[in-house]
């Protein structure tokens, strides 16, 4: 039975960090952070687990840290795990339902039925649907955003379906279950949808917005328009590729390159109009490399990455009109050229955003690196809240891995966004 003060947990297995956020569901439709653990990631490359043992060790460390900070991990009612990579792709599905009741009003049953039907698409046998999000409804061919209690004869739901390769996705789930959550329901969520959940406002969702989560291993993106998701995906090129490019191009050790990128030294050098970067040490007593060389390598990689994302959106027929511009988040968005180049490639205003509505013990979490985790935590709270009376049955259904938050009183993923105050 759901009650306030239930504990939820959000786990992110990322390429740069593994983070665990523990939250307490508060009575006023929000979640307070009560504990967190964050350790350097091991065994994860380009977003996916390649060495399960090291990842498990690191995850256990993070969980210990989280538990010692709040002591409540044992009572966790629901865990959300962020997934990325896994050849995740998205598709739109259409489902119909006929309104049969005599008054011809649309009830939740019809809505649920049309959305269920939308999930029936031809997926390869190795794939499964991870998340779905309703883009819009057509009631008798008229576009509506919420058809409940409206009159009509035929309801069509256009749903954005995210699917991935089952075996690779189950790596994430099994990893979390092995670390102490054998009996807790585990919910998976595609990373950019979580980030969008965490930091995109309702107005932006209506006006059209592109969210880019520029992480260390992958870059994920999601497009929202008219309160529905119209596109999403992942490209397994991340900020670490920039460090790699620099290491190869300038023949520097990879750690030097990572340090240079994170420290903001390149931005400072550009501001001071310096021509070279001096690197002490080495056999010759130091090297002096032209700043332009750094900038060329970095700019080319950044530009190519975002242009590929743009091309992927075009190929998926996602309209590129973003009334609210582009929101960049993730560790890579802190680099000074990222937002500038995104703005150029998409010809739209781009800002770097951090989670804004953090509550509880959130010191150090207001960084773009935690947008996705925060979104996943909020989502976990909502899942729990929506499960309502008879929660155990609903939670059982959730465990099947299909994002379905249905009971008689709620609809799909999108409506959660509606009821959340941003």
């Amino acid at each position, binding site marked *: 039975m759901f009650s306030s003060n239930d504990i939820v947990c959000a786990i992110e297995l990322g390429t740069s960090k593994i983070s665990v956020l523990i939250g307490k569901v508060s009575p006023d439709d929000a979640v307070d952070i009560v504990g967190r653990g964050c350790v350097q990631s091991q065994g994860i490359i380009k977003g996916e687990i390649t060495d399960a043992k090291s990842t498990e060790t690191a995850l256990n460390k993070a969980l210990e840290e989280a538990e010692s900070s709040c002591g409540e991990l044992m009572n966790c009612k629901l865990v959300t795990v962020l997934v990325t990579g896994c050849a995740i792709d998205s598709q739109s599905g259409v489902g119909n339902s006929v309104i049969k009741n005599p008054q011809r009003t649309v009830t939740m049953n019809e809505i649920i039925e049309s959305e269920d039907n939308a999930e029936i698409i031809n997926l390869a046998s190795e794939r499964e649907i991870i998340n779905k999000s309703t883009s819009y409804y057509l009631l008798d061919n008229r576009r509506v955003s919420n058809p409940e209690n409206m009159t009509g004869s035929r309801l069509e739901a256009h749903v954005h379906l995210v699917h991935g390769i089952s075996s690779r996705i189950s790596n994430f789930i099994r990893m979390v279950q092995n670390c102490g959550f054998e009996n807790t329901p585990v919910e998976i969520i595609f990373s950019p949808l979580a980030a969008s959940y965490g930091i995109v406002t309702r107005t932006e969702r209506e006006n059209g917005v592109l969210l880019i989560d520029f992480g260390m291993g992958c870059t994920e993106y999601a497009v929202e328009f008219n309160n529905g998701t119209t596109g999403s995906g992942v*490209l397994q090129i991340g900020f*670490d590729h920039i460090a*790699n*490019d620099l290491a190869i191009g300038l023949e520097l050790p990879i750690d030097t390159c990572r340090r240079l990128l994170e420290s903001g030294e390149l931005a400072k050098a550009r501001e001071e109009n310096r021509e070279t970067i001096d690197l002490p040490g080495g056999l010759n007593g130091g090297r*002096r490399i032209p700043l332009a060389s750094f900038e060329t*390598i970095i700019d080319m990689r950044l530009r190519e990455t975002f242009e590929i994302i743009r091309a992927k959106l075009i190929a998926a027929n996602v309209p590129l009109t973003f009334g609210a511009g582009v929101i960049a988040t993730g560790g890579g968005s802190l680099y000074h050229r990222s937002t500038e180049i995104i703005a150029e490639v998409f010809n739209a205003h781009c800002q770097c955003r951090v989670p804004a509505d953090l509550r509880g013990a959130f010191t150090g979490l207001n960084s773009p690196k935690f947008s996705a985790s925060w979104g996943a935590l909020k989502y976990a709270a909502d899942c729990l809240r929506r499960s309502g009376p008879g929660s155990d049955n609903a939670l059982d259904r959730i465990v099947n891995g299909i994002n379905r938050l249905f009971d008689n009183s709620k609809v799909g993923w999108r409506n959660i966004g509606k009821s959340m105050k941003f």
Partner: protein
Amino acid sequence: MIENSKFCVIGVGGAGCRIISHLVREPGAEYLKLIAIDTDRNGLAECGLDEEHTILAGEKWRNGRGTGGRVIDGQSAFSPERRRIEEMIKGSQMLIICGGLGGGTASGGIPIVLSCASNMQIPAVTVLSQPFAVEGLQRQRISEQAMNNEIIRIADAAILIPNDLLFAGLDPATPLAEAFQLADREMARSVLALSTILCAGNLLNADFSDFSALLRRKKSHCALGIGVIDTANEGSFTAEKAFEKLLESPLLGGASTLCDADAVIFTLTGGPELSLSDARSVFAISTSHIGKKTSVLVGAAVDEKWRGKFQYTALAVNYEKEALPAGSQGTERKKSKRQSRLELSDGDMIQQTLPLSENEFSRGIMEKTTPVRWNGEELDIPTFLRKNQVIDTGKDQLS
């Protein structure tokens, strides 16, 4: 020593004609005989030469409209013009052929001009530009095929200047039209500098026969650096200044080119005030910056026209070694490398390994991971490598 009036510069194709039009206006080029050959009537009209020094190739057949980027059309346009070409170059002691590879006229026509020259036993050197990386693989392929299969076999020396390098030294805010103008002018200056090198000889003698001994029949790619000092604006001539200006020249590709070259030819040109000690100090600095195994030729020339100005040029010759990291066309390069291995069995060449195909590009820390692919490209390979971008690693310290 070559008499100047017998020195002939031929511009082929659109780029070649633009270079000629710059040369027409450049002081110091009066002693060169200029010829322009193109399939496009407009290109010829704008180059500024009079009728008798131009040839509109394939006039009857193409009607003066250009080749549209097709090499085969370039070849068929030039074949019937052989006689006219031979007439025009008769009596010259040296040919410099300039143009831009990648299109139809130059890529198709230059090999034919070269064969005319070799029929008449006139030594020929080519100064050619390579298309931008962004112009696409098709033009690059055309440019490479023309160079490797045709030109390098016949020409006595080939100087390749990639367009990307021409633009590398420019301010990114430069308007495009101006950028192209500057690039053309830089090419024209290179041609002029080359002619200076070949004509040099009053003070210290770099004989043409030395030059051709370095370059004849060996597959070589060259890089040309030019530094100019105008004493009216920049103060008096010093050896350090001259050398620094040379290194700043975008076409040279940095000091590492000098270090890595197999041979370098330095030439200093100046007005009557150029003294022997000036020349010696410049050459002393220069030779201290080249590799141990590099052969060096130095030359100097004095001319009234250069009063108040100094020009220091370096021609860096690389045998068998590309000045750029190679692109992704593996098969053609593999063939030419094998061929050259057979040719050069006397062991006096140092074989360098080239990155021949995508397999040999480094992926760094992404080496053992599942590759990420998009549009047939492997994205783990650094973007700048896949797009043939030259990077100055600053590995050679000048201080």
